């Protein structure tokens, strides 16, 4: 067999590996119910802030502890814990994307992406 044929076979194998891997590592946009069923997997959840419930951030006692309540797009609500300071523009965001997993009743967010409306243009602020 020609060496180039061997190389091509190896190449195809690695390419398939890459496809499988990026598919396997990919997270999905889901809601709290799905996240609760698979507590070991990390999901992206899109939702809005429940402004009727209090969000909590007291930097003096703990600068790395911020909680709030998020309503997902199916209308289900969950408490979210984010172990970092409250993103500054949090209150003004109209849509919130949280990335993380369910831990019992609480969603542990490792990243928060905010979609903020501004007067004329749309802006994104990323906090992680």
């Amino acid at each position, binding site marked *: 067999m020609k060496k180039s044929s061997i190389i091509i076979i190896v190449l195809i194998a690695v390419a398939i590996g890459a496809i499988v891997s990026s598919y396997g590592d990919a997270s999905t946009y889901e809601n709290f119910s799905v996240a609760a069923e698979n507590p070991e997997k990390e999901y992206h959840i899109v939702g809005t802030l429940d402004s009727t419930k209090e969000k909590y951030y007291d930097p003096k006692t703990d600068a*790395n502890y911020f909680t709030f309540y998020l309503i997902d797009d199916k209308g289900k609500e969950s408490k979210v814990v984010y172990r970092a300071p409250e993103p500054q523009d949090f209150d003004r965001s109209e849509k919130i994307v949280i990335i993380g997993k369910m831990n019992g009743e609480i969603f542990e967010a490792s990243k928060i992406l905010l979609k903020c409306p501004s007067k004329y243009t749309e802006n994104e602020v990323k906090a*992680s």
Partner: protein
Amino acid sequence: MNEVLFEGERLIYGNLGHLAVVLAFGTSIIATLAYFFAVQKPEEKSWAKIADSAFYVHTFSVLSIVGILFYIIHQHLFEYHYAWQHSSRELPVQYMISCFWEGQEGSFLLWIFWQMVIGNILLRTAGTWKNPVMAVVMLSQIALTSMLIGVKIFGYKLGSSPFELLRIAMGNAPIFKRPDYLSKIVDGNGLNPLLQNYWMVIHPPTLFFGFATTVVPFAFAIAGLWKRDFTGWIKQALPWGLVSVMVLGTGIIMGGFWAYESLSFGGYWAWDPVENASLIPWLILIAGVHVVLIFKHTGNSLSVAFILILTTFLLVLYATFLTRSGILGNSSVHSFTDLGMSGQLLVFLLMFVVLSVVMMAVRWKELPKSAKDEEIYTREFWMFIGSLVLVISAFQIILTTSIPVFNKVLGTNMAPPADVIQHYNKWQMPMAIIIALLTAVAHILKYKKNTGDAIRKIGIWAAVSLVIAVVLMFAFELTNWFYIGLLFASVFAVIGNASLLKPMFAGKVHLVGSSVAHIGFGILLIGVLVSSANKQVLSINQSGMQLNPEFDAQANMEHVYLEKGKALRMGDYEIEYRKDTMEWVNNYYQVHYKKIKPNTNEVEYEFDLYPNAQINPKMGLVANPDTKHYLSHDVFTYVSSVPKEKGESKFVHPQTYEVAVGDTIVTNNGYVLLKRINSNVKDGKIDVANMQLLIAAELEIHTLDRVYEATPMYGVQNNSVAQFESIVDDAKLRFKFTNVNPANGKISIEVAEKDTSGEFIIMKAIKFPWINLVWGGTIIMIIGFTLAIIKRLKDLSRV
């Protein structure tokens, strides 16, 4: 329809601008067609003349667009949407240049500008290749200028004009019904605060120059296929390819440096889709340049060289599509909003894909191919393998970056991996190891035939590198096997290539370009490895307090609460937030660092960092980090949160001291000296006439690093005591003159400390060891590329 006559609009500039855009678009069409016919009908000489003239007019109109747009921004003509949206009055001039490319239209204009410059160079240097190459370059220029037209054709809006009026762009807002609307628009929207950084002035032009240069090797490849001169195109395409690799690489790393210096994610690379989008064509281009070299020296792999060179440009277009169509949506920080041009961008991309595929397919059978099997002990074999690894590496990055595209096409709802960094590192690290090893192996081997001598050299240098790598492994305290593997491979890349520097000492510096570039690459890899593997978050919460109910993991506690004036121990550092100063719109927070020797608690050295933040009305807190650079490490600090508003100053712990002139009082941050008691006060603010007595205590306040003055006063007015306090803000002290004791000549001074508990910052600090190797490696790489380009240009002029 009754027209409203608007007052104060300076429409002439917009009209001229529009005219220039249309002219640029029109002339690029004429030039493309004329160059095309000049190739197809070489006997009709007039085609080339028409084409060149059209190109000159094109050059003039592109320069006009740039000039007019800059004038509009510089003169604050806010009747134009672009000026209003991207600039504001108080913006310094250097940032006005950044406004220029903050928007989509401006960045397309930048690309058009560079492609025009490149066209002018080609016009003078491409010789017999001029007509076919310019035909392709101008075809790309048609596509780019069409993005600026902004005219509706058959109900479809073609492009988006940078000269659109605000009142038209904003449509129906009631303010635009008033004829005097312009007088109501006081200021523009302003420049995104993240872009208010000097790196943002030079990073985009560099990157876009890199993007623009990729069209040249592409055009030469197409021209080669077109004219059936399958090998002649390489001579000129090669130096251009090297320029492209160098400039694009510089642009990418500059972007990383900007991110490191001014963004608060803490690093220079985040595998963000937009970063990936520029990295992918770069990797493919590097692979392409190597395969072109293989062909040049051995006559093999020509078809692969064609494919890679063509693909590079197509990937630049794909990157443009990804970042500007809005398809990345939630997955990127670089938010270019969709201007409704995604369709047009897709057409642009497909047009060039079809062109490339058709040209390759039509000529495929005619391409010279070698039938014989490759020798293993040759440079070309391992260079080829290395190029393929680069291709796989790029392929893997494309796959994950394109997840939003798959969602659109397949209707799935995949999201990018939750831990992106880990996902990419898992793939890219082994590939980096292979590539680093191959840079040394392939380079030591010679083309075509090798003796045992070369293989023995590889063995010797590998052994030397192994020894060095083991020493470094202990020095850097690496334990992960992947890291150790990468360390060895990178050291081998440096050492192996350094062994080839011999011609340099014989004065032939231009011959060692590729060795130097590969040494730079090896150093860059070591820098990336050590600065990320040994990256240390200094601000891990040290308090050990566990106050919150769901407090289970210590992970993620990477931010510290720092009260003004209170020192805090953070690892080997003691830090103190001292004060803040406003400068323009930014608030600078002075954080004083003391490096403490772990064993003796001695202070080794001290420095101040000034991370800043601006409370932007549109974006909230926008924080810029500050970094202390040392040769061996950087200390990186940014403010992640500040109090929402400042409270009124309160003073606490008042204490009264009885003192005579010359006495001192010890305070919490220094001491106070009573210099003099002045009974003859002339203070304009106090009505002395009604006072039976007014005396002042002249105090000198010594803090750690400065001396201040204060004069609290004591008065008697209509038989009642009046006190006039004196506050020294910077020393955080308040003084009151409360009593006089005539018996012993002493007076009573009350000292109170400012209550600083309301003033705090939340900050994060990271130590990056040996990050200078990343920048140093990059600079060496650029020097290497420059030498290689010089060598290729010499080759070119020799013929």
